């Protein structure tokens, strides 16, 4: 009887545990587990994965703390939410070799934007993603992204308005409406150019600013601005604030000293996009450059591996809605 009891006890005590651990071992086959935790606790683990071109990559995404999101930069993959303790299985197949950035799409913590990782896709290297990338405009224009571009002495009575510009009844010459002009000039330069034109002789300075607003609005569409707004809300508002005032929930507190973020990295408080003095000395090329490269030492992350070129321009266009009235209908 004692022997039967011993066997029964062993089965009852250890049976379920053995079955669970064995099932786990069997079930784990072929899946790469990626654990997500807030960056302060480690971010993505692992954050570097290698796969082969055109081979399915089975991922099991596991959040170990709060809700995270998973997306691949510059891809059409819809972001996937990862809820704590509820693993999410996805399968990715890459048809081009290269280096792909995956990142968190949920505001998971103050250093949310640091949650990035890399999927290296190996295979035929005749064409790679990086090979297809074009040179950023700010490099072609030799713009120094880190040089100060604010205009503390800017003489501006009111924020320019596209609607008021339209009421002037003046159509700016075609060269001002070209994409090349818009991308490579600052609003302040455009004001100087328009001020020197003969058609603006009878306009006061504020009215010339309305023309600048008109030129800037002509360079975009509401559809693009909507795309830009969505990108801004998803990726930028956490630090820059929903209204672009630099007061997002994760922005460095201006009272912090020294200016370090919660992980001890250099950081500065984000600029106020509503302030023309901080915006009108920057060209769209400069803003797009800052977006894709990131602001070295400011805490601004690089978005070049995440946003496509079109997305980065849509986002750039949207930024002007904060400092130009009626920029978006």
């Amino acid at each position, binding site marked *: 009887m*004692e022997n039967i*009891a011993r066997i029964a006890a062993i089965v009852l005590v250890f049976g379920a*545990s053995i079955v669970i651990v064995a099932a786990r071992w069997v079930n784990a086959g072929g899946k790469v587990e990626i654990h997500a935790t807030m960056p302060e606790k480690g971010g993505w683990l692992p954050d570097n994965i290698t796969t082969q071109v055109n081979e399915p990559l089975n991922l*099991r995404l596991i959040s170990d703390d709060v809700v995270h999101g998973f997306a691949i930069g510059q891809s059409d993959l819809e972001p996937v939410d990862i809820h*704590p*303790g*509820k693993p999410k299985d996805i399968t990715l197949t890459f048809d081009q070799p290269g280096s792909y950035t995956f990142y968190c799409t949920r505001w998971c913590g103050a250093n949310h934007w640091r949650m990035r990782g890399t999927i290296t896709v190996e295979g035929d290297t005749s064409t790679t993603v990086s090979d297809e990338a074009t040179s950023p405009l700010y490099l072609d224009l030799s713009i120094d992204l880190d040089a100060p571009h604010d205009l503390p002495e800017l003489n501006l009575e009111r924020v320019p308005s596209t609607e008021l510009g339209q009421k002037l009844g003046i159509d700016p010459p075609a060269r001002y409406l070209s994409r090349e002009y818009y991308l490579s000039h600052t609003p302040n330069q455009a004001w100087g150019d328009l001020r020197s034109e003969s058609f603006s002789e009878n306009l006061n300075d504020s009215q010339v600013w309305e023309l600048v607003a008109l030129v800037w609005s002509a360079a975009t569409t509401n559809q693009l601005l909507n795309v830009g707004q969505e990108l801004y809300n998803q990726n930028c508002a956490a630090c820059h604030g929903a209204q672009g005032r630099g007061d997002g929930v994760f922005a460095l507190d201006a009272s912090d000293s020294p200016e370090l973020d919660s992980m001890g990295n250099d950081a500065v408080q984000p600029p106020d996009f509503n302030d023309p003095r901080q915006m009108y000395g920057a060209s769209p090329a400069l803003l797009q450059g800052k977006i894709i490269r990131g602001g070295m030492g400011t805490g601004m992350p690089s978005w070049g591996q995440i946003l496509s070129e079109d997305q980065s321009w849509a986002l750039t266009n949207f930024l002007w809605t904060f400092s130009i009235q009626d920029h978006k209908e």
Partner: protein
Amino acid sequence: MTRKPLNSLPGFNFWIKSRWPQLIIRAVLLGGFIIAILAGFLGTPVGNRNISIVAVWIAWWAALILVAVPIFGRGWCAICPIPMPGEWLQNKAVLGPSVNRNSSKVSRRFPKRIRNIWLQNAAFSLLAVFSVVILTRPIVTAWVLLALILVAIGVSLFYERRVFCRYLCPVGGFIGIYSQQAPLELRVADPSICATHKEKSCYRGNEEGYGCPWDVYPGSLTANTNCGLCMECLRTCEYDNILINLRSSGDKLPAVRGGSLDSSYKAFIMLGSAIVYSAVMLGPWSGLKDAAYQIGSLTWWGYAVGLLVVIWAALPGLFYLVTRAAHKLSPSFHNPRQIFNTHASVLVPLSLTAWIAFSLSFVFANGSYLVPVLSDPFGWGWNLFGTSNAIWTPYLSQYVPVLQTIVLTGGLFWAARKSQQIAEARNAPRQSWPIIIFCTFITVSLLWLFVG
């Protein structure tokens, strides 16, 4: 007090005396215990998705404090799996009893000076200062569970009987004092039979069972506190002189049988920790909650010291002043320590109902976490029973404040009645007044925290 023996029920003695049902239940629970430890170490660190947290601190705790303790007293101890491996090793048998009819191969007794519940009080206090983290982080829960089982094994190999349960288990201490109020008891039918029975097989054991693992002589049992309801004495009694009774009221008051300081302190620890936990987890002070979480930080040290001061010094000190006032109001021949220890027993029902009310606040709110966890116990993405996507749903949330009010008010009346009985037994009826005022103050404070 009226008693109704359950032994006369058909089949009762057969199932209680058989060793198999208890072995199977405890083995299954030990299996669950091991799963909880594995889940803590290997499963998701997200507490509400890990069975170690949900099964232990929601399901088990609810079953223990809302059902097992109030109704069955030490009923949980009868099936607790923690001492089981140690007992197996100690007895060298799983089913037992072993061929050698001695109760255990190990004969070393626990040191006399610590044969009390001071160590249990200390163990509970130690867990209390880490409790917020233990309750929420699976890996910490796993370490605690593992530590409990290892200590139980270690002690069983060194000392005879269930020393861990009697003197060390942080849970066993409060189950013991609350079991005094339970409507279930184990007593002898005729003490004279025990008095004339020379073998004392209930204490020494025989071929039918082990000598009392709780180191209790059933013949002299007058309170539930130290009886673990293990049923060994029912098996070993040659005269079927052991009864399991349903009774109309709790154990006799310590006013008659005398109280001890370690038991009094257990009441203060339980009442104090219920108050502090309620303040931390239900109160409006987020700073307090943060301090309890941030183990090792300066604020946590402040919280830990504050908690220990409340349960070990402030509450007993305040109660001592209250008992002094009671003595002045209605002097009796007892010394201050006797008055303190005796009246402290009224805190037993008060703290039990405080714990029940506190548990109601999170058991109904968080009970639904059990549904997805059953399908995915480790948080590995399984869906064994198709319930892993069940969403969190608080149950009976509109009734919980009503239930808490009823429970706390009932506890106050219960404590007040006990206080009156103690005072009347001493011919000092006004002694109960300050005690009742004290209990009312505690109850009103808890009602404010729970109901707002």
